[in-house]
């Protein structure tokens, strides 16, 4: 593998894993606090799955540069994380959390469906594996968007508010990582432009069917994954504290 392709692949895998780690942590914040027990369990399952996926993406990176996934997750500073701003935003209310999870799950599912055909076999295998789990997430959050959008006046307003806030942020999911064009040219990862077209079509239809209006002005749209909101610093402070207190700890 050419060194520039390798570097680009490391950047892409890091971005994939970092999105999963941070989103998993946000989902886990509901553990013990979700509106009903069933949803507490469901979101804990989703968080656990996303962590499993992060482990797979970090594992693929490890094959390229020998990195250690625990070091990456627990000992990097916020400025070194390459997640989108969407996933680091505070969990908000239930509508905010369900909408974000839906927008992300839809993107991830579409990306994985295409990445199954990657010319880089380890990535194709991992995508095929993750897709089987991700479908359950999308099925779940798809139903929640409909339920809240068409529920009561208040639930609809809360969803609309979440959508107005998140729509611009969600567009960052389709901004390529450094060197990603090389990977696309090699057939290693899907073209994000094509994924975005599918995502827009599918999400627009479902959101509108759920009685929601796409914002006319999408607002702030982050681009670089090297930039973050202040929320990433506080989430990492919590997530990494145990590991940093006792770096030798083997069992938590």
């Amino acid at each position, binding site marked *: 593998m050419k060194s520039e392709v390798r570097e680009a692949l490391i950047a892409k895998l890091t971005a994939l894993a970092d999105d999963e780690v941070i989103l998993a942590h946000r989902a886990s914040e509901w553990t013990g606090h979700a509106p009903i027990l069933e949803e507490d*369990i469901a979101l*804990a399952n989703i968080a656990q799955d996303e962590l*499993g996926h992060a482990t797979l993406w970090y594992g693929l990176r490890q094959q390229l540069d020998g990195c250690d996934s625990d070091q990456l997750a627990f000992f990097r500073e916020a400025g070194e994380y390459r997640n989108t701003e969407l996933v680091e935003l505070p969990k908000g209310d239930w509508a905010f959390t369900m909408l974000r999870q839906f927008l992300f799950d839809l993107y991830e599912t579409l990306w994985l469906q295409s990445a199954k055909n990657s010319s880089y076999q380890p990535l194709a*295998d991992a995508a095929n594996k993750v897709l089987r*789990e991700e479908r359950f997430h999308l*099925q779940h959050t798809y139903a929640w968007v409909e339920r809240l959008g068409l529920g009561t006046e208040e639930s609809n307003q809360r969803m609309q508010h979440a959508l107005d806030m998140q729509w611009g942020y969600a567009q960052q999911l389709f901004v390529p990582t450094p060197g990603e064009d090389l990977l696309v040219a090699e057939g290693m990862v899907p073209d994000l432009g094509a994924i975005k077209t599918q995502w827009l079509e599918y999400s627009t239809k479902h959101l509108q069917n759920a009685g929601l209006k796409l914002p006319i002005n999408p607002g702030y749209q982050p681009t670089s994954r090297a930039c973050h909101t202040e929320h990433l610093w506080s989430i990492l402070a919590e997530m990494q504290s145990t590991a940093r207190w006792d770096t030798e700890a083997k069992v938590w």
Partner: protein
Amino acid sequence: MTTLPTTEQVWAALAQIPDPEIPVINVVEMGIVRGVVIEGNKATVTMTPTFSGCPALHLIREQLEQTTRSLGFDQVEVKTVLSPAWTTDWIPVNAKERLRQYGIAPPKPKSEQDSLIQLEPSPTRCPRCGSLNTSVKNTFGPTLCKAIHVCNNCQEPFESFKTV
């Protein structure tokens, strides 16, 4: 000099390891063990994860290693592969029946679905009374591989193994 076991004997020993979360079926029936290769006094066991975030995977890996080592090999390696991706179709019919007797509705045959969303999957049969008049209560259950249902006939809640 002791004689090392054959691959068949290693498989048989591994089939004694119950799944940590669903002990009525073993890790071989679960489809987790994908291969056993013996070269001299070294044994290589290949495994595949069920759900990638399953917390029992670490334990299963340790148990595969320990069980194989206890058979007398000097070197034991447990490798993880992702391809072919794990599917519940690998669980044999008799193990599925044991799941049902245990109170967990077994996975159905996997259909290669292309649609993103399958909101109305075929009804899951109640493992207690056999009725198909059941409803999904939660796509997610106490472990990553299970969902929660309720039987509208016998009124009992039950778990089902997800079809993957």
